[in-house]
């Protein structure tokens, strides 16, 4: 697994670490984690005096877990939609967030159902959709 950073513009200064990738037929289970960087500039503005890791940054962490998994397969997914994203608990600077993703593949479309657990329990549940040119699964 390559540990090189992703090159897309992103609000994350955090590096999502993929811990495990398990193939189950065409599906892929992914375990990853990320630690919220207290010096991430987004926290200064979200919000002044009350830094909370933005919900959309949790979506971005899930997205990065998918992108890093895809890179290990040699494909580059393009996000085409988010069918649901529910934010259940606030995540703060320094928190460790555990990421569990189930990626289901059909032709060139991927769906990633992702849960993100913070210090106190489930922080967010998101389902992301992708077009994946060249995936022959």
């Amino acid at each position, binding site marked *: 697994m390559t540990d090189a950073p992703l090159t897309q*513009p*992103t609000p994350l200064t955090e590096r999502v670490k993929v811990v495990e990738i398990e193939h189950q037929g065409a599906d892929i289970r992914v375990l990853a984690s990320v630690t919220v960087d207290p010096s991430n500039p987004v926290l*200064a*503005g*979200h*919000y002044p005096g009350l830094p909370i890791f933005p919900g959309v940054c949790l979506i*971005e962490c899930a997205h990065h877990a998918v992108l890093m998994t895809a890179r290990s397969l040699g494909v580059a997914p393009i*996000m085409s939609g988010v069918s649901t994203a529910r934010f259940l608990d*606030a995540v703060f600077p320094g928190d460790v967030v555990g990421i569990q993703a189930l990626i289901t593949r059909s032709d060139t479309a991927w769906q990633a159902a992702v849960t993100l657990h913070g210090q106190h329990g489930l922080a967010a549940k998101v389902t992301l959709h992708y077009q994946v040119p060249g995936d022959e699964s």
Partner: protein
Amino acid sequence: MIGIAEIAQRLPHRHPMLLVDRVTEIVPGKHLTAIKAVTASEPWFRMSPPTEDCFPTVLLMESLCQAAVLLAVWDMPDSAALHSKTMLLGSISDVIVHAPVRPGSIIHHHVRLCRDLGDSFLLDGESTVEDRPVLEIGQVLVALRPAAALNAPVVAPYEVR
């Protein structure tokens, strides 16, 4: 024209996460149109040298959601900002990404209030660049919550899809 001062009275977000620049049309309780100009000097384009130049999709969502929050709290300046209450994004659903957005683009957000539940609001909307759709969101739930209750889940008094 409604600029940053009026926007910052209603949104607690600040640089670099204040992602609405101007409100061009507002009918309180109904709909709102807002503008966000994307520039290469925003911190997400920090990669050196730049390899790709798409505005992050999640920030496009955030920007549209901020326009939605503005509409939701329009008649409550200061109540959402900074003090006793915090505006939280409860959920978003049925998001379709139509096209990438690059620096130099002027994004127009069009949002509509679907339901006002007192301290929670359901909205929908879409974003365009040069009249072409770049994003649509089927449903946004935003909720005003006391800052002290941040560890409590944001749950609406109805079933969220």
